[in-house]
């Protein structure tokens, strides 16, 4: 398979088409507008649907309508836009509809900035909308991985009938890297006749389908929430993904980092190795479900003295790291969240300071 040099945002757009998703609704926002620009000419080529909505609020519900009608559909946005879509995401979870959301994160809060950030970790993994709703969240660290995650996101969304989010920082969307696309249409969209409001004419049984999230009866609502919880628990059993780097032998510090930040951490680990300092890295590829066991076991290695959560936010993932480590080792946060990505030298300094005697 030949490689092409592509900008992350354009590769994400192409990956969705290769995944059999020909329906896209979006609203422009930096730093991910290239997805919409690319799809505005690419989707008509494949007889797909492209529509620029009037707001992220409306786009969220165009996604809802299309997902409810039983087609593969996705959107892309960036942090403030995702906040506006979060209402619809809660409704999608409540009505158990599959859809894919890509968040190419920029700095916040408020308008924040337009440079890379990882400050939507809490929003994506813990507080995406009102009510007991969760997303399956995947975090790519390269353009190639973004492509692969987009392609797996659609079948996963259908497997769970739940929205899936690709959480990338601005750099994943903006940088160009060589990328090869997996074979086209690995997964055919599943049959949705049991639940989709796609017209009852063609169905085998003469019964209409309702797509809804309102359950006024307390028992019914509780049952719906129990069904959702069962799905989230199943995700924890079946969908955890992570990469372990330099964790085979002994190491004195364990770093936990994801996305673009984890690549800087890898470089720092290689540079430290040359100086004779061994540092391990766990890179969560799914943020929900979180690789708790992997972080716990790596932290408990007898040679490991401390755990560092390194992120482009003011200390969000560190709470999941602490939860995973369960007090077995000291856990420390390090991060920046203005748009600059911490350098390998900063990480090396941090590791050395962590190891220096008090």
């Amino acid at each position: 398979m030949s490689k092409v040099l592509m900008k992350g945002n354009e590769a994400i757009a192409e990956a969705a088409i290769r995944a059999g998703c020909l329906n896209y609704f979006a609203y422009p926002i930096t730093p991910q507008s290239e997805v919409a620009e690319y799809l505005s000419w690419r989707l008509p080529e494949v007889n797909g649907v492209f529509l620029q909505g009037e707001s992220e609020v409306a786009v969220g519900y165009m996604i809802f309508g299309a997902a409810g009608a039983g087609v593969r559909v996705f959107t892309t946005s960036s942090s403030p836009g995702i906040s506006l879509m979060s209402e619809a995401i809660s409704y999608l979870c409540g009505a158990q509809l599959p859809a894919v959301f890509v968040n190419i994160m920029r700095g916040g809060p408020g308008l924040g900035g337009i440079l890379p950030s990882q400050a939507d970790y809490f929003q994506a993994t813990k507080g995406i909308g009102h009510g007991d709703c969760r997303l399956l969240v995947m975090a790519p660290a390269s353009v190639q991985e973004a492509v692969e995650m987009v392609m797996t996101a659609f079948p996963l969304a259908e497997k769970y009938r739940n929205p899936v989010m690709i959480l990338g920082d601005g750099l994943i969307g903006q940088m160009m890297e060589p990328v090869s696309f997996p074979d086209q249409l690995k997964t055919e969209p599943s049959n949705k006749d049991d639940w989709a409001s796609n017209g009852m004419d063609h169905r085998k049984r003469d019964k209409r389908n309702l797509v809804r999230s309102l359950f006024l009866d307390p028992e019914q609502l509780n049952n719906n929430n129990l069904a959702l919880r069962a799905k989230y628990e199943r995700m924890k059993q079946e969908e955890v993904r992570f990469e372990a780097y330099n964790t085979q032998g002994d190491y004195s510090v364990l770093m936990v980092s994801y996305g673009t930040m984890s690549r800087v951490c890898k470089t720092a680990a290689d540079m430290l190795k040359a100086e004779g300092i061994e540092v391990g890295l766990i890179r969560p590829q799914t943020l929900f479900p979180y690789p708790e066991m992997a972080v716990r076991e790596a932290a408990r290695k007898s040679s490991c003295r401390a755990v560092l959560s390194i992120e482009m936010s003011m200390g969000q993932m560190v709470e999941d790291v602490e939860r995973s480590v369960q007090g077995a080792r000291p856990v420390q946060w390090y991060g920046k969240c203005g748009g600059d990505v911490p350098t390998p030298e900063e990480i090396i300094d941090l590791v050395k300071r962590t190891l220096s005697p008090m």
Partner: protein
Amino acid sequence: MAKTFQRPRAMFEAHTHYCPGCTHGIIHRLVAETIDELEIRGRTVGIAPVGCAVMAYNYIDCDFQEAAHGRAPAMATGIKRVRPDLVVFTYQGDGDLASIGMGEIVHAANRGEKFTTIFVNNAIYGMTGGQMAPTTMPNQRTTTSPFGRKTEEVGMPIRVAELLASLVTPGYITRQTVIGPKYVQKAKRAIRQAFQYQLEKRCFSLVEVVSTCPTNWGMTPQEAIHWAEEVLLPYYPLGDLKTPHDQSKEKPCKVK
């Protein structure tokens, strides 16, 4: 002997939860009759709003989606764009469409989305208990305007049909009512026409239906009908504001 009047197939045999004197039941029936007559039940998707009609799907028997407050036009857009073969209608009240959902209806109408909106205007929020709506009349008392709507503070009521008819694109915008038998017949024709235009993939269509809410107006059903006739209809005049035939009047824009 042939039956001349019966329950439409597209309606469940059910008691509604609507109050005495409420006109939702009549409007539901007109929609259901239209679905029957056009033989489209098997490819129709309705969108229920937030408001008294949130459970419209308990009465109208076809596929349904349930919207968030005001978002029905965006959902209808999503369905219709990916499945143009389906017949899609939104059923929305005035709080839903004219307040929280004004952005969605304006843009869906302006894109010329090929779905149909049944807009039930009773000048008040019904389900939440009679609060002021953008369509509430001057000096009309509601639970959030206990001294009457003060237009110097919140402006005059919005005429949705006129507002949408000011856009170039939307094809069929009409205002009807169902507060008397003579009106019901006309409203039925308008609703059927709106669906017909959709079937012809012709234009966006919206039927505003001036309606009553005796419970929240604090009136008997009889008084409510009189009040609607005397106060609402002069401000919300009935008739077609726009039909697809008008559209040829618009001069084409020059493009470099």
